[in-house]
C-alpha cells in the first residue's frame, strides 16, 4: 500500500445520515470475485435511474464532484453490511477520505485497511464542512488535522496502529505474521 500523508481536494457533500453499505454498493454487485472496478457500481441506485442513465440530481453526478477526493458524509456513515466492497468502490471511484461525525465500526475498519481515511470530527467542524460543498480542504494524517473552509483547523484521531500503517504504507498482515511465535505458544497452551 502507498504511504498516505496529506490529501488536498475539494469536497463533495452528502448530508444524509445513516448511509448504509447497501446504498454504497447494492448486493447484486457482490457476485464478483475481484475487488477491482467496483467504482462503476458506487451508489448505483442513486447515480442511475431505472433505465441506467445518470441522474442529474445526485450529488456525485454533478460536474462539481469531478475529481473530488474528500466525501463529507452524515452521521453513522457505512452502517449495515460488512461488505468491504463499499470502501473498494469508493476508492475505485476516486474517494480517498470520508469525514463524518460518526462512522460505523466495520466500515471504518475496512476503510482504514484499504487506505481510505475514515475520519470523525467534532459536530461544529462537521457543520462547517457540510455547509460549504466544494471547499478546498486539506487532511493531514501526520498532524491529525483537517483545514476547514473558515480558515480554522479541526482535529481528528485515528487509532494509532492504523495511522502508523497508513503513514508508512505498512500492511498489518505482515505485523500479524510476525507474531507467529506468540500464536504458536498460545495454541500450545490450549
Amino acid at each position, binding site marked *: 500500500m502507498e504511504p498516505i500523508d496529506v490529501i488536498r481536494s475539494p469536497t463533495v457533500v452528502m448530508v*444524509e445520515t*445513516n448511509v*448504509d453499505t*447497501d*446504498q454504497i454498493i*447494492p*448486493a*447484486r454487485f*457482490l*457476485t*464478483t*470475485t*475481484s*475487488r477491482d472496478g467496483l467504482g462503476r457500481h458506487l451508489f448505483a*441506485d442513486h447515480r442511475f435511474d*431505472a433505465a441506467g442513465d445518470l441522474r442529474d440530481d445526485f450529488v456525485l453526478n454533478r460536474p462539481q464532484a469531478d475529481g473530488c477526493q474528500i466525501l463529507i458524509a452524515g*452521521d*453513522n456513515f457505512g*452502517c*449495515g*453490511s*460488512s*461488505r*468491504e466492497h463499499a*470502501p473498494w468502490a469508493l476508492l475505485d471511484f476516486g474517494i480517498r477520505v470520508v469525514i463524518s461525525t*460518526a462512522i*460505523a*465500526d*466495520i466500515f471504518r*475498519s*475496512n476503510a482504514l*485497511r*484499504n487506505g481510505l481515511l475514515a475520519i470523525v470530527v467534532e459536530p461544529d467542524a462537521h457543520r462547517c464542512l457540510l455547509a460549504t460543498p466544494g471547499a478546498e480542504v486539506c487532511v493531514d494524517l501526520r498532524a491529525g488535522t483537517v483545514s476547514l473552509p473558515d480558515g480554522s483547523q479541526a482535529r481528528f484521531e485515528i*487509532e*494509532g*496502529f492504523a495511522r*502508523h500503517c497508513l503513514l508508512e504504507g505498512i500492511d*498489518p*498482515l505482515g*505485523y*500479524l*505474521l510476525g*507474531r*507467529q511465535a*506468540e*500464536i504458536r505458544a*498460545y*495454541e500450545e497452551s490450549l
Partner: protein
Amino acid sequence: MATQLNTSTGRTLFDKIWDRHVVVPETEQAPAVLYIDLHLVHEVTSPQAFDLLRRRGLEVRRPDRTLATIDHSIPTAVASWRNGLVDMDMAARNQVRKLATNCGRTGIQLYGVNNSRRGIVHVIGPELGATRPGMTIVCGDSHTTTHGAFGALAFGIGTTEVAHVLATQCLLQRKPKTLAVRVDGCLQEGVTAKDLILAVIGQIGVGGGTGHVIEFHGSAIEQLSMDGRMTVCNMAIEAGARAGMVAPDDVTFEYLAGRCKAPRGAAWDRAVEDWRSLPSDPGARFDACVRIDASALEPQVTWGTDPGMVAAVTGRVPASGASPRALEYMGFSAGEPLQGRPVDVVFVGSCTNSRLSDLRQAASVVAGRRVAAGVRMLVVPGSQETKRQAEAEGLDRIFADAGAEWHESGCSLCIAMNGDRARAGQTVVSTSNRNFEGRQGAGARTLLASPLTAAASAITGALADPRPLLHQPRRIA
C-alpha cells in the same frame, strides 16, 4: 444512555472471553492480537481473501477451525434446484465454484451445493454445535453477532480481515466498550424476540451501539429459547454494536447437547463446568446500560428505511420528525396508521428468523387459512436440516395448503442477490433484518416484523397485528 457508577472489579462475560483469547496484549502502539476459535466462511466475502493468501504465498493456518458454506448467492426456489440451477447467474455460479476450489485446495470443510447440512452460515454454525459458549467467532458477514446468543464473542469482519484470520487465526483488535441491555418482565402472547430487538433498536438508535459489545440480560432474555436469543443477538449489529451476547445457561447447554460438533462424555461435562463460569460476575461494570420493560411491548414493525424507524404495529408513522426521504421511499405519510397498509410480498426467512420455532410460529397463524389474493408469500428455511425438521412436522404442507411458496434454504429475499427479489414499489413484510432502500430489490419497500406479524399480514393482505388471529377459529383440514 446512563453510565453505571459501579466501581466493583467483577468481570463481564465479554471481559472473560476477551481475556482468554489475548495472544499479545494491546498497547498504546498496537491493538491486541486476538485468537479466533472459529472462522465461518461463505462464497461472497471470501474469494478476494483467498486470492490475497495465494498472492502472498500463505497457507490457511487452521483449516480445522474454519467452516464454509454457500448461502448468499445460491438460489432457493425449488424449481431452480430441480433444474440443476441452470437459471443461476453466471457470476454467482463462478463464486460458488470458487469457494469449492478454495476449500478443496486448503482442506476447509465445505457445506456445499450437494451437502445435506448446508444452509445460512449463522443457522448451521449453531445447528452443528460448532458455535459454543466462550468462543471467539468471526465471519465476513455482519450478522455474525447471531452466535453471541451462546455466550460467545462473535462479530463480522471485512474481507481483508478474513484473509488475516485465514493466514494467522488471529485479528488485530482494540478492546471495545460494553453496553448492558437489561430486559425485564414477560413478553405478552403474540410478542416475540423479534419485536423485542426491534424495540431495543428503536430506543437506542441505529448508531446507539457503535463501539460497544452489547450484553442482553434480564428475566425476559433468560426466558427466551435459543432461537429467540439468536434473533436478538443477530440484530445487535442493526444498533451498530460490534457484537451481541447472552450469558450461557441451561437453555444453552440443552440446545447444544448431542449436536454433531459438540463435545461428548467427560469432555462435555468439563465444557459445561467451564461454561458455567462465563456469565458476568455480580456487580460487573459496563460502560453504559439501558433498560427495557418486555411486558409493555406490542408487536413491532418498521415503517422507514433503517431498522431504528420502528413503531408498534397498532401505531402510526410518527406525526412529526420522520425523515421525509424515508417516507417518500416507503410511500407513507406522516401520522398514517400502519395497520392496513396493503402488502404484495411476505418473506419468512433469513438468519434472523428462519429457524424451526420461527417457521412454527408462522405456520400457527397460516394453518387452515389462505394467503390473501395477490400476495406472494415465501417461506425459506435457514438450513436443509431445518427444512427436513419442518417437513417432518408437516409445516411445509401447512404453508403449501395456504398458497405460500416453500423453498430450499438460503439467504433468499433478505439480500436479493440469488434470484429471489421484490419489484420496485412493492411492499414486503419481511422477517429479515434490514429495511434499507433497495435491500430486497431496487425500489422495493421493506417492513421488518416478526414471523407472526408477517404471517398475519400474508393472510390479511395488509399489514396486520397477529394477536387477534391467534385464537380465531379456522378451517383445519
